[in-house]
C-alpha cells in the first residue's frame, strides 16, 4: 500500500521535474528560430487534433444546422412547394402572416397565453414542491423521483392520449368535478377549457425544473437563514430575502429553458386535436400550425417565414431575460 503510493508520488514528482526541465529547456531556447518553429508545429498539431475531434460535430453544425438556417431564411422570402423551384416574393409571406391570416394571429395568441400563463405556474409549482422536499431529507428521494417521472414522458404520444381520455366528457376529471357540483363536461372539445387543459399538462411536468431548484436550494448556506432569524425575519421574509435572491440564477436558467420549450409544444397538441388544432383552432399552437402549413399544405416558404418569426421571438425573449438579469440575478461570489 505505502510503497505503491510512494511510487505514485515519486512518479508524479518525476513527471513534474521532467516538466520543469522541459520548461527550462524551452525558456533557454526562447527567441531562437528552431524553438518558434517547434512551437508553431505544436500549435499546428493541436489545431489539427482539435478540428479532428470536432469533425462529426462540424459536419452536423454546418450541414444540418447553419446551412439549413441559411436556406430557410432564403425560403422565408419565397413561395415554395417542394416540387417546383422556389419563387422569390420578397416580404409577402410576412405581410400575409400579420395582415391576411387570422389563423396565424390566433395561433400566436393561444401560444402566448399557453407560454405566459403556463410557464409561471409550472415554475411556481416546481419551486413550491422543491421547497417542500427540501424541508426533510428522509423519504424525499422517493418523492423526488415520483415527481420527476412525468417530465420524462410528458411529451409522449401515450400521455397525450391519456390526457385526452382523462379530460373527456364523463372522463375521470369531469366525473370528480361533478362530485363537487362543478359540471364542466369534456374539456377537450370545449373552446374555453382546452387551453387550461394543455396548461395543466405542462404543469404536470414540473419535475425537471423542480430537480434543478432542489439542487439550488441545497446550496444555500444555512447561516443565511439563521442570520435572518436573528434579525427577526418570519418565513415570508426568509423566502423573499434569502431564498429568492440566492436562487435567482437557477430561476433565471429555468425560466429561460421553460419559456423556450413551451413555445415548441407539438406532439400533445397534435394528438389531442387529431392533428386539426381544434376545437375552433384553440390547440393550433405555433409549431402545429407551422407543421400544417409546411407539410400538409406544402407552403414551405410560408412555414419557413413562420419559423423565422419564432426564432426572432425566442431571441428577443432570451435577450430581454439576459438584459434584465443584472437587476435581479445574483451569482455566488458577487458583491450585492
Amino acid at each position, binding site marked *: 500500500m505505502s510503497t505503491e503510493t510512494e511510487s505514485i508520488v515519486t512518479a*508524479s514528482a518525476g513527471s513534474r521535474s521532467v516538466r520543469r526541465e522541459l520548461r527550462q529547456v524551452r525558456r533557454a531556447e526562447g527567441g531562437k528560430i528552431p524553438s518558434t518553429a517547434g512551437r508553431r508545429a505544436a500549435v499546428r498539431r*493541436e*489545431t489539427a*487534433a*482539435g478540428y479532428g*475531434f*470536432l469533425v*462529426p*460535430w462540424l459536419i*452536423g*453544425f454546418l450541414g*444540418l444546422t447553419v446551412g*439549413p*438556417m441559411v436556406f*430557410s431564411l432564403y425560403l422565408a422570402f419565397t413561395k415554395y412547394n417542394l416540387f417546383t423551384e422556389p419563387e422569390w416574393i420578397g416580404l409577402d409571406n410576412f405581410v400575409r402572416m400579420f395582415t391576411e391570416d387570422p389563423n396565424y394571429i390566433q395561433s400566436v395568441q393561444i401560444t402566448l397565453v399557453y407560454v405566459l400563463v403556463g410557464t409561471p405556474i409550472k415554475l411556481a409549482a416546481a419551486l413550491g414542491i422543491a421547497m*417542500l422536499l427540501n424541508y*426533510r431529507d428522509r423519504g424525499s428521494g422517493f*418523492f*423526488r*423521483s*415520483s*415527481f*420527476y*417521472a412525468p417530465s420524462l*414522458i410528458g*411529451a*409522449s*404520444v*401515450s400521455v397525450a*392520449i*391519456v390526457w*385526452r*381520455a382523462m379530460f373527456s366528457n*364523463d372522463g*375521470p376529471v369531469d*366525473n370528480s368535478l361533478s362530485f363537487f357540483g362543478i359540471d364542466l363536461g369534456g374539456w377537450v372539445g370545449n373552446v374555453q377549457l382546452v387551453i387550461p387543459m394543455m396548461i395543466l399538462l405542462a404543469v404536470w411536468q414540473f419535475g425537471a425544473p423542480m*430537480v*434543478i431548484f432542489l*439542487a*439550488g436550494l441545497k*446550496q444555500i448556506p444555512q447561516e443565511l437563514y*439563521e442570520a435572518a432569524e436573528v434579525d427577526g425575519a418570519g*418565513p415570508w421574509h426568509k423566502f423573499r430575502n434569502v431564498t429568492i435572491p440566492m436562487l435567482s440564477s*437557477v430561476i433565471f*436558467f*429555468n425560466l*429561460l429553458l421553460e419559456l423556450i420549450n413551451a*413555445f*415548441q409544444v407539438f*406532439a400533445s397538441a397534435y*394528438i389531442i386535436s387529431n392533428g386539426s388544432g381544434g376545437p375552433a383552432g384553440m390547440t393550433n399552437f405555433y409549431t402545429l400550425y407551422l*407543421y400544417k402549413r409546411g*407539410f400538409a399544405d406544402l407552403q*414551405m416558404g410560408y412555414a*419557413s417565414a413562420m*419559423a*423565422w418569426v*419564432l*426564432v426572432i421571438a*425566442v431571441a428577443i425573449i432570451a435577450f430581454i431575460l439576459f438584459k434584465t438579469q443584472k437587476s435581479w440575478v445574483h451569482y455566488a461570489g458577487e458583491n450585492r
Partner: protein
Amino acid sequence: MTTFEAPRVEVVENALEPGSSTQPRRRVKRRTINTVIWFVVLLAFTAIVLYPLLWLFLSTFKPSSEFAQNPGLIPENPTFDNYTKVVEGIAGTPLWRFFANSFFIAIMAVVGTVLSSALAAYAFARIKFRGVGVLFAAMIGTLLLPFHVIIIPQYVLFNKLELVDTYWPLILPKFLATEAFFVFLIVQFIRNIPRDMDEAARIDGAGHIRIFFSIILPLIKPALITSAIFTFIWTWNDFLGPLLYINSPEKYPLPIALRLYNDATSTSDYGATAAVSFLALVPILIFFIVFQRFLVAGVATQGLKG
C-alpha cells in the same frame, strides 16, 4: 443533569426551527407532527401526480365497453382481452414490429449521440486551438435555437438525397452531435476532471487520441450514461421526426403507430388504445426506475452550471 443532556442535542438540531426557545419536549413533539404533515402532504401530491399513469395502467384491463360508464380506477370486469387483441397490431403490421423499429432507432441514436458528443466535448474541453471559443459559443447558441427553423430545409435535403421513408434522417444527425445538450453536459463533466493525468500521459508521449480513449473516456462514464439514457428516452418519445420522414406502416416506430390507434379506434376501441399507450411507456418506466440516479443528477448539474 441527564435530563439536560438530551434536550441540548435537540436544541442544536432544531436551531433552525421557528420558535426554538420554547420548551424542548413540546418542540420534539411539534417536530414529529410537522414531519407527519409534511409526509402526508407530499403523499397527496404524489397520488395526484401519478394518478394519470395508474389510471392508464388499470384502464388497460377494462373492456372497451366499460370506458364510457366507468371513469374510475378499478375495472369492473377486468380482462386481458385488450392485450391479446393489440398484439396482432394494426395496418397489417404486428405490434412487436413497432417495438423493434423504435428500439432500433433509439439504440442507433444512443450510439451515435454518445460517440459524437464525447468526441466534440473532448475537443471543446481539453484542446486549445484557434477558433475553439467561437465554436463553443456557437454550440451553446444551438441549445436555444428552436429546431423548427431547420426542419423544412432538412426535409428538403433528405428528400433530395432520396432518404425519406428510411431511418437515415432520424439516425444520421445523432452521429453528428446535433444534440448540443449532451455535448455541453459532457464538456462540463470533463472540465471537472483534474488535468494532472492527461498532462502526465502527455509527457509520456501520448497523443490526444490515446488520452481520450484511455484516460478521459473511462472517467466520464457517468456523463455518458446520462446522455445515453436521455437520448434513448427522447428518441423513443420523438413524434415529429418519424411523422415527417416515415411513411410505410411497417417502418413506423411506436409513437406513429399509436397515432394510428388513436385515429382509427378512439371512438370505439379505447381498450386497445390504452393497452398500446401503456406498453409504449413500459421501456421508459423501466429505464427510469433503473437509472433514476443518473437522470436526476444529470438534470441537477446541468441546471447549476448552465
